[in-house]
């Protein structure tokens, strides 16, 4: 069992858990992920490692309530435990001195860019971070991102905070202004990563993306996580999750993410129904 040591609510639906998982923390590196199960009979879901503390033996994950498992997880608090927590999985993000690195984070993906921005900065890069969210209330970790970067640009789709518009706009300007960029790292919803990659492609700036297909085991056993990169099928859980954004078949990724949308709805309904029954039982 893996105890929840700290919990923070960034928004109504985005939460931070600090988990007691010394074995995972011991060798965790930026860009890797964990697979967890909330409870017995639960599904295995991947979450990117948002922070780690080797000494304290803790892993921080940030998650958004999008379906049954994440909603169930959001009901847990400090002192509760997760049933399973395996990691660190996947290959770490390549971090070295590239020069000027633009880190782009969208939605709660911002949290997962944090250890990467920090590592890039520590490796001697000039780090410019562009972070975006739909609206002001969904912006997370702004201060932390500021501390991990040399420059921070914040965008909201509706203009309620920072620049109005998508994260690709400032990126495009930078590229067009010919300010030398040596590398782009993008993490967020697939659609955002796709457009970041499309934006940087004409300028030939290497762009690393962290793919988030459906996964089951996370160890190379099932192939549910297969993605196509440069026309070759890869298992994102062991060959990735980082890939060359200019070579990813984005439409395939977007389609494969939707395989179980119907079932996800059923699962959520079932759980909600169950929860309400449990409550009424408890009251009776």
């Amino acid at each position, binding site marked *: 069992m893996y105890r929840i040591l700290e919990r923070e609510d960034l928004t109504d639906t985005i939460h931070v858990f600090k988990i007691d998982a010394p*074995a*995972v923390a*011991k*060798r965790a590196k930026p860009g*890797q992920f964990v697979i967890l*199960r909330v409870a017995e*009979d*639960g*599904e*295995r879901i991947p979450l990117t490692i948002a922070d780690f503390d080797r000494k304290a033996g803790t892993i921080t994950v940030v998650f958004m309530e999008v379906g*049954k*498992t994440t909603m169930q997880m959001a009901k847990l608090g400090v002192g509760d435990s997760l*049933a*399973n*927590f*395996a*990691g*660190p*999985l996947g290959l770490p993000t390549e971090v070295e001195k590239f020069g000027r690195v633009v880190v782009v984070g969208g939605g709660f993906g911002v949290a997962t860019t944090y250890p990467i921005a920090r590592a890039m900065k520590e490796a001697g890069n000039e780090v410019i971070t562009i972070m975006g969210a739909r609206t002001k209330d969904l912006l997370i970790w702004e201060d932390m991102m500021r501390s991990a970067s040399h420059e921070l640009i914040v965008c909201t789709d509706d203009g309620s905070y920072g620049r109005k518009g998508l994260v690709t706009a400032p990126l495009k300007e930078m590229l067009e202004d010919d300010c030398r960029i040596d590398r782009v790292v993008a993490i967020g919803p697939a659609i955002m990563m796709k457009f970041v990659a499309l934006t940087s492609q004409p300028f030939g700036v290497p762009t690393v993306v962290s793919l988030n297909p459906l996964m*089951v*085991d*996370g*160890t*190379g*056993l*099932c*192939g*549910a996580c*297969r993605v*196509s990169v440069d026309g070759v*099928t890869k298992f994102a859980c*062991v060959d990735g999750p980082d890939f060359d954004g200019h070579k990813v078949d984005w439409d*395939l990724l977007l*389609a*494969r993410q*939707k*395989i*179980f949308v119907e*079932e*996800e709805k*059923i*699962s959520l309904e*079932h*759980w909600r129904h169950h929860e309400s029954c449990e409550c009424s039982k408890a009251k009776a």
Partner: protein
Amino acid sequence: MAKLNLNRQPMPEQDHKERARNFKEVTLGYSLETALAEAERCIICPKPACVKGCPVNVPIPDFIKALRENDLPGAAKALKSKNNLPSICGRVCPQESQCEALCVVGKKGAPIAIGRLERYVGDWELRRMEENPSVPAKPTPTGKRVAVVGAGPSGLTAAADLARLGHSVTIFEALHKPGGVLIYGIPEFRLPKSIVGAEVDYVRSLGVEIVVDSVIGRTVTVDELLDEEGFDVVFLGTGAGLPNFMGIPGENLNGVYSANEFLTRANLMKAYAFPEADTPIKRSKRVAVVGGGNVAMDAVRTALRLGAEEASIVYRRSEEELPARREEFEHAKDEGIVFRFLTNPVEILGDKGWVVGMKCLEMELGEPDASGRRRPVIKPGSEFVLDVDAVIMAIGTSPNPLVTRTTRGLELNRHGTVVADPETGKSSKDKVWAGGDIVTGAATVISAMGAGKRAALSIHEFLMMEPRINADRSG
């Protein structure tokens, strides 16, 4: 001498129509009466051929003799002297090509149903252990620490044998549940998970610690286990779990799965009970499974039980070459599985990202190939489209490279399997042994178990030599 009975006792089964819609075990097992009657057929050959057919040389006539004298503890003891997992092997071993193939009675009639008797005795022993949980005698600790990677049949067996010899054993398992293929691959209707669970509990009762959620190569590497975590030796039993795909167009469409994904969802993650269990699985209507081995049979029969209107096997050779166990083939046929022999897929067709059909070619058998089987060749102009909404690829697996890629100085074969001495399981790397599918490529439960046993012995010899070496060094 009584007249030889040429017919074996039939195995009671669930009705085929009923079982095609449930996940309960297909075969129900012998009763004591039928087991005794079947045992009675054995002629207890003084030079038993069957034993030679068994990859771990179970003293078959000994256990059958004890059984027919109604000495069940004696029968269990004889069986378990060579086979740690009789309840499992009795169910899943390909006896028809091993022990039973060489049975002398089989020359005249049906061979003795050795597997069914093994299952009977194994299950009796499990029940006895459950009713009478005796704590196994603790051997004198040797102070040596062994890390076993992977909790499949090879790892569980090596761990149990080493623990009995007094070593301190920790199994590291990547998944959340121990058992390997027995838990994630082979379905409940063929091997009830409670049996695997009982065997795992027994291994734990010997003092073996099983650490789940531990992905060796990621959570910790083999070199770190030896150099930093204080283990004296490592046994690798990581299996051959990486699914192969055909490399034909359309294989990444929604609705195409590896058999491993399909079976893992259904078995390990209990998706058949969705939404009671969280992991979903598609209940497709027309499912084609590509391949002809046990894995293909398990996948297609699972698809049927999940409610498919047509579940079919697409296999490029003929019925004769089918590598699946005969019993599984017969069961599948009875349940209504459609077999499309001499059929080879060339493309999976999609619409809006989802599978809508599979383009196939008809084959005919030509000259024998390297494996001695007649090579299938394309029948010209035979292309047709199979109407399916899901395709499951069961065309084999390769060794999972997570461990092998992250371990220094481990010699591998061309196919990515670990090079190990067939007698001892010793790898090219100091202090590292390996056994099971990671060495042989996808094989059988019994061969993995046998490899675990041989490696345990060799590891024990090595560990017991160690102190002297150390003493010499310090002296």
